[in-house]
């Protein structure tokens, strides 16, 4: 589904990703962990096509298509979804209106009929239950004045509505209390299928108790320096990152 080969990227003059290799297949959950500043969020941003990151080398193929030159909206329409670490507040645009526009733009791209209001509302009601989000919140301006937990739930709600093939969750757990974390993780798990894949970018092992990864990768200094199964996450939790850094720095 996703194939990243020797990816290099920089922001302004600073090289952040220095040769990432990653293969993600349908049905898999990959966790990307690593200390602060290792490039985790940069990787997530590059996949979604954030403009201020410049890819300087390597390949990123999504379902066989090279996406490096693809506009962010086309990546989304192809089925890539980024749950933002810091969801953006947009005054004056209601979540409902925004999502209806997004859903129908994606459907149009895929050659499907637009959803009418009745269908959309029905779909919305269903997906709202997944992340226990209220109608009143969705009628408000997008993320404006939302609590941290509400913003993250709104991200997962949007993901549920857009039904991506590949979801990239960028530190979706940071700042969440345990109840909010459970709700968010629960939503992600319910959306999981054999056809879609999830990349969970996180700093904390805690999330992985709820979203169980098939693979865990440790990103350090712009490279994946260690990969393993979920046991690796537990080891990191126990021992911290220093031993990984030490190992990586020797190499």
């Amino acid at each position: 589904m996703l194939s990243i080969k020797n990816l290099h990227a920089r922001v302004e003059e600073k090289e952040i990703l220095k040769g990432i290799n990653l293969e993600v297949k349908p049905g898999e959950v990959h966790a990307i962990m690593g200390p602060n500043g290792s490039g985790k969020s940069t990787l997530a941003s590059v996949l979604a096509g954030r403009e201020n990151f410049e890819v300087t080398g390597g390949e990123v193929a999504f379902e066989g298509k090279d996406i490096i030159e693809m506009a962010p909206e086309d990546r989304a329409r192809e089925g890539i979804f980024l749950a933002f670490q810091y969801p953006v507040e947009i005054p004056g645009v209601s979540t409902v209106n925004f999502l209806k526009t997004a859903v129908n733009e994606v459907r149009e791209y895929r050659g499907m009929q637009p959803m009418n209001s009745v269908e959309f509302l029905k779909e919305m009601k269903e997906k709202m239950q997944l992340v226990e989000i209220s109608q009143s919140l969705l009628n408000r301006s997008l993320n404006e004045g939302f609590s941290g937990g509400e913003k993250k739930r709104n991200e997962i709600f949007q993901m549920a509505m857009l039904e991506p093939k590949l979801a990239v969750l960028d530190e979706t757990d940071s700042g969440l209390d345990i109840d909010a974390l459970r709700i968010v993780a629960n939503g992600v798990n319910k959306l999981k299928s054999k056809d879609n894949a999830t990349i969970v970018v996180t700093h904390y092992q805690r999330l992985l108790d709820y979203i169980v990864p098939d693979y865990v990768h440790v990103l350090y200094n712009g490279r994946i320096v260690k990969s393993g199964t979920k046991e690796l996450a537990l080891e990191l939790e126990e021992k911290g990152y220093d031993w990984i850094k030490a190992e990586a720095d020797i190499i």
Partner: protein
Amino acid sequence: MTQLVDKNMVTEEFLLRYNTSLEEREQEPEALVKYREEALANFLETGFPTRKEEEYKYFDISKKLVDKFDFAREAGAKVVAEQDFRQFLLPDLDANVLVFVNGKLAIEHSKLVSPEEQVTIHGLAGAVKEDPAKIADLLSKTTLKEDPFYNLNASVATDGAYIEVHKNAVVDKPIMLYFFTDSREEKAVAYSKNIFNIADNAQVSVIETFHNIGNDDSFASASTEVFVGGNAHVDYYKVQADNEKAFQVNSTHVYQGADSVSNVVTVSLDGAMVRNNLNFVLNGTGIEANMYGLSLLDSQTAVDNHTSVDHKFPHCESNELYKGIYDGKSKGVFNGKIFVREDAQKTNAFQANNNILLSDDATINTKPQLEIWADDVKCSHGCTNGQIADEQLFYLKSRGIGAEKARAMLLMAVAEDVVNKINDEVLKNHISAIIAQRLMK
């Protein structure tokens, strides 16, 4: 007066023309003639305002007007057929309608639907004939007489709308004022003077638009005096979407009585140059004065909004929100003055001006000006100038929304902040639709 000739673009022909016009008006009541003479003297004192004047520093309209128009003559009354202006009418609006052509009431196109017990609606010329003392008395209450264009207008305008809302009356339908300039045969210069006389506890909603019929240059000089009685409520909407040959100077002075509420919403979408002078004088306690503006401009259009609110008594509130979206080579000016006099304790005065520049050639000059003499007040002002936030744009795009649509959604949200202040649903939807169409193009 010879020494004044040629001062700031006032010519000898001009003087001759206006002195003659005053003589022609000898049948007007003495007080009105005095009002005009005083206005003319004030105008001659200053001439047309140049960019040396602080108030016109960023808006060089005088030179353009003097170059283009012959101020020594006024456009005569024209006869227009409904088909000439049908395209400018607001659809589906059930309203009292007054149509003016080159500043003169066109009675054949006007219709009144609200009962006489609620409101008396006349052309100003008719109102002067009917009760000259009343009009003279109202004009004697005006205090804002500094602006040269106001004085020019006051010295010559003879017609316009006279709206008298009776005590305790709630006018059931809005009053729609269409001002047309007819430039089909020659350039048009049109003056109109409106007076809204709103009695205590009354409520009314007025909408005005200006349109140039024809493709030659037009200049509309409009001046409106709004007297808001105690506890009265007025909504006044100005829709400015004229063609690229149309110049307009629009002065509005709102004199409010105790506990009254006024909302003035100015939506500027098109035209050559528009200058709006909007001034509030709060002559009592417990007053609320709200002024909202949206400039959504493209090509060469230039719109200057100068506002002021004068807090003279305690416990009043003023809210001001002006937003601008500038594309092409358009130009915006905002100047907001807030005066809080020594006696005006417990004043709440808020002002915000937010601008988005969509092109490198568009410009905005913005200047808040607060002068506060009272010490127990809450006043704030804020001004932002910038581009569309990249983060917001990326967020929308990352959900599959195309770049153009995402941009339009963000700009629509900015515009709606002001458009939502329009209480008249028909007008609000109409304006929203125009804006959506413009932004999606």
